[in-house]
C-alpha cells in the first residue's frame, strides 16, 4: 500500500483539480495486473488531469507494465482504467490519440527512416501522399531531415532515439508516452531530447515520461509518479515532494566548531534517531525523524549564539533521495542510514 503521506499527498492537489476537467488523462480504479503469480501492477487507484507527468521507478518497478496497460497492449487482471476518457482495449479511436516511444532498441534493418515512418503513418490510415509529406515534416522536427534516406541500422543511438520519437509524434497524438527516452544519448542528445519534450509539454498536449534520469525529468515536468513493486509510492509536484521529503526521516550532516555542545543538545531531542560525532572532522551525522523540527531548533540555537554552525548538508528535496526514502519506507525498513542523502 502507498504510504499514508503519499495517499494524502496524491489526493491533495490532483483530486481537486480533476473535477475541473470533463476528461481525465488517467483514471485507474483498483488497477492490477498479474503475470501468473508475479504482481506487475498492484491496486493502482489514481485520477490525473491532462498534463505532463514523469513516471519514476527502478527496473522492475512496474513502469513498463503500467505503460502496457495504458496503451492497451496489456489487459488488466483486476480493476479498470480509462485513458483520455476511453478504455484502451475497447475504443476504436484510442490508438489514434496516443503516441508511444518504447525503451527498446530500434532494430529495423535495410530500410530508411523515411520508409519506416511512412509505413507507420500509413498504418494509421493515412494516404500515401500525406504520409510522405508528414514523414518529411516530422523528420525535420526531430532533426533527421538530412539523414532521411539513410538506413536506420547505420544511425547512431541518438539518431535512432529521435527516429523513435518521430514515429510517436507523427500522427499528432494527444498523449505522448515515452519509456526511457534518454537511454544511450550523449549530453547534447539529452539536452536536445529534453528541449523537444519541453516544447511538447508547452504545446498543451499530455506527456507521460518513464525515466530514471531524474534531473532531466525535473527539467521537463514538475509532476511525478513514483512507482515501485507495482505500487504507486507517491505522486505530486516537485514542491509537494519537497514538503514530503522534509517530513521524512533522513540523514543530515552538520559541520560545526561546537559539535560537543550541539551533540548534547540534540541528544535530548526525541526526534533524533541516531547521532554520530566525528571529532576530527568537526561534524555530526544525524538520522532525524522530523527534519523540520531539527531545522527550527538549529535556527533558534544559532541565533541565540548557543552553537555555531558552518554547514548543513543532507536531503534537499532531491528526487532520488526522496525515492530511496520512500522505497525504504515501503519496504518497512526502520533505518534510513543508507539513503545517500547529500546536498
Amino acid at each position, binding site marked *: 500500500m502507498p504510504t499514508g503521506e503519499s495517499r494524502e499527498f496524491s489526493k491533495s492537489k490532483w483530486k481537486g483539480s480533476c473535477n475541473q476537467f470533463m476528461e481525465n488523462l488517467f483514471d485507474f480504479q483498483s488497477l492490477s495486473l498479474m503475470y501468473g503469480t508475479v504482481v506487475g501492477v498492484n491496486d493502482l487507484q489514481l485520477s490525473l488531469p491532462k498534463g505532463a507527468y514523469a513516471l519514476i521507478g527502478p527496473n522492475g518497478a512496474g513502469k513498463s507494465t503500467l505503460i502496457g496497460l495504458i496503451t492497451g497492449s496489456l489487459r488488466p487482471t483486476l480493476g479498470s482504467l480509462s485513458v483520455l476518457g476511453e478504455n484502451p482495449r475497447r475504443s476504436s479511436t484510442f490508438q489514434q490519440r496516443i503516441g508511444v516511444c518504447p525503451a527498446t532498441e530500434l532494430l529495423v534493418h535495410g530500410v530508411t527512416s523515411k520508409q519506416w515512418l511512412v509505413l507507420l503513418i500509413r498504418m494509421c490510415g493515412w494516404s*500515401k501522399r500525406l504520409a510522405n509529406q508528414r514523414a518529411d515534416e516530422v523528420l525535420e522536427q526531430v532533426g533527421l531531415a538530412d539523414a532521411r534516406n539513410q538506413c536506420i541500422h547505420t544511425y547512431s543511438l541518438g539518431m535512432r532515439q529521435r527516429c523513435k520519437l518521430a514515429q510517436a509524434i507523427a500522427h499528432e497524438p494527444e498523449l505522448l508516452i515515452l519509456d526511457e527516452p534518454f537511454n544511450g544519448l550523449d549530453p547534447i542528445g539529452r539536452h536536445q531530447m529534453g528541449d523537444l519534450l519541453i516544447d511538447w509539454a508547452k504545446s498543451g498536449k499530455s506527456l507521460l515520461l518513464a525515466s530514471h534520469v531524474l534531473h532531466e525529468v525535473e527539467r521537463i515536468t514538475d509532476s511525478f509518479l513514483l512507482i515501485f513493486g507495482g505500487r504507486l509510492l507517491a505522486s505530486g509536484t516537485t514542491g509537494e515532494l519537497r514538503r514530503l521529503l522534509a517530513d521524512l526521516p533522513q540523514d543530515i550532516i552538520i559541520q560545526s566548531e561546537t559539535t560537543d555542545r550541539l551533540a548534547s543538545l540534540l541528544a535530548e531531542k526525541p526526534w533524533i534517531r541516531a547521532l554520530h560525532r566525528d571529532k576530527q572532522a568537526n561534524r555530526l551525522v544525524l538520522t532525524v525523524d522530523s527534519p523540520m523540527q531539527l531545522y527550527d531548533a538549529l535556527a533558534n540555537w544559532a541565533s541565540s549564539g548557543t552553537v555555531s554552525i558552518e554547514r548543513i548538508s543532507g536531503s534537499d528535496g532531491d528526487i532520488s533521495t526522496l525515492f530511496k526514502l520512500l522505497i525504504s519506507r515501503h519496504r518497512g525498513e526502520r533505518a534510513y542510514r543508507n539513503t545517500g542523502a547529500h546536498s
Partner: protein
Amino acid sequence: MSLKTTPTNISELSGTTNPNNPLGGSLIRLLKAVPGVIEYELARSFKPARIAMFLMMILIPTALLISVAYQVPEQLKNDQQTNLVFSMLLYALVPQILTMLAMLVLASPIVHTEIEGQSWIYSLVRYQGRRALLLGRYFVAVLWTSCAGVVVTSISVPFLPLNQPLQTWGTISLLCILASLAYGALFALIGVLFQKRVMVISFLYALVVEGVLAWLPAVINQLTIAYRLRSILFRWVGLDGDRLFQSNELVQNGMVAADPTGWVQIVWVLAISAGLLAIALWLVETIQYSFQSEL
C-alpha cells in the same frame, strides 16, 4: 530541434475516419494501411538474401524436374502413364512441396519475427496495425511464393513429357496460387497462435496433416488443403478425370480426391483460406502477446 504542431486536423489529413462510425472507419483504415505494408515489405524484399532465396526456390525444383524428364526414354514420352507420373511429379514438387515450404518459411513467423525484432510494439499501438501488418505480410508472402511456383512451372513444362502441356501449365499455375493463399492463411494462423517454436509447429503440422493425413483414404483427409488441391489436379490436368473417378473405388468414394467439379474445389480452397485468415485476423487483435521486455 523544436516541436511544432501542424494546424491540420488528423482526420482531414488522412481523409479516413468518421469517429461516429468506428466500424466503417476501421475497415477503410485497414484497407488503406494494407497497401502501405505491402509496399514497405516489397521494398524490403528486394535484397540480395531474398532474391537468392527466390532463385533457389526456382532453380532446385526446375533442375530436378528437367533432369528426371531427361531420363525418360523416347518411346515412353507419349505414354498416358508417363503423362500421369509427370503431372503428379510436377504437382507434388511445385504446389505441394515448394509452395507449402515457402509459405511455411514466409508466413509462419509473421508475428514471431516482429516480436523478436522488437518492432511489434509499433504495430500494437496503431489501431488496426496488427491486422494491417498480418495482411500485408501475408499478401507479400503469397506474391513471392506464387511467382516462384508459376516461374518453375513455366520453365519446366516445355521440357516435360506431357500430353496437354498448356492445360497442365494453367492448372499447376492456378494450384500454385491457390496453395499459396491457403497454406499462407494456415501458417499465418499457426504463427498468430503460437509465439514460440512456430516454425517447428508449422513444419510438424505440414508433415503430419498435409503430408500424411491428406493421403489417408478416410473422411478426415477432406479437411486438408492438399485434398482439395489434388481434386482440382485430377479434374483439370488432363488425366481423364471421369475415367479415373469411375475406375478406382477409393477415388469413386471421394477418399483420394473429391468428385465435384474443379470450380467447387476452388471455392472450397478460397473459403478455407478466407476462414483461416479471418480467424488469424481476429486472434491477432485479441491475443495478449508477451512482449513485456519490449516496452
